[in-house]
């Protein structure tokens, strides 16, 4: 399947892209992260500490073990600092 992957804040800066289309075999968010980390050092750096990352699937907050089936948009970002 193909998903649109979005990066925000320092995740975007480390990876050097705001978004990209990704072909993946992964069944979960964690599987997708493993594929990305295997690609290049900048991905490994961005995903080094999952406790400081959040993920949204189709614009709803989700967990790293959430399934990817049917998902079109995956976003990775640090904890929010709004308000």
């Amino acid at each position, binding site marked *: 399947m193909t998903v649109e992957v*979005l990066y*925000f*804040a*320092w995740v*975007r800066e480390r990876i050097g892209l705001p978004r990209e289309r990704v072909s993946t075999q992964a069944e979960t968010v964690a599987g997708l992260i493993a594929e990305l980390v295997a690609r290049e050092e900048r991905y490994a750096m961005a995903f080094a500490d999952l406790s400081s990352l959040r993920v*949204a699937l189709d*614009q*709803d*907050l989700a967990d790293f073990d959430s399934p990817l089936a049917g998902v079109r948009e995956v*976003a990775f*970002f*640090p*904890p*929010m*600092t*709004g*308000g």
Partner: protein
Amino acid sequence: MRLAVQTEPFDLGAESVAFAAGAAGAGAVVTFTGIVRDNGGTLSAMEIEHYPGMTERAIAAIMEEARSRWALVDALVIHRHGRLAGGEMIMMVATAAPHRADAFAAAEFLMDYLKSRAPFWKKELGPEGATWVAAKDEDEAALRRW
């Protein structure tokens, strides 16, 4: 209920007056305004990034949740993104209710959720460079009281 996510400044005075005037049956109106702190000029500016689409969804969900929990007559959220100078207003929340306890509780609830659950990220641009603002444990803790 109205929500706006925008780069432009907003007019706190005009927004407050229009909100209070439109809140028929309200006895209590609470507003919160967030301002870029400028402590002795050490913070020259702030850059706020957000996730277009999800931001509006998240704020709308937070406002619906507030309306389901308290007897609100109306609520308003305005949140800016982009580059803001020290002293500029970042965002405002307003709540209107028949009684003050509901208006205060709903405003605090909205702020706690906007801090940690709406997809905004703040970067401080100071004299020593740019730093992403770290989420605070106390902001996560503040959510647990609701």
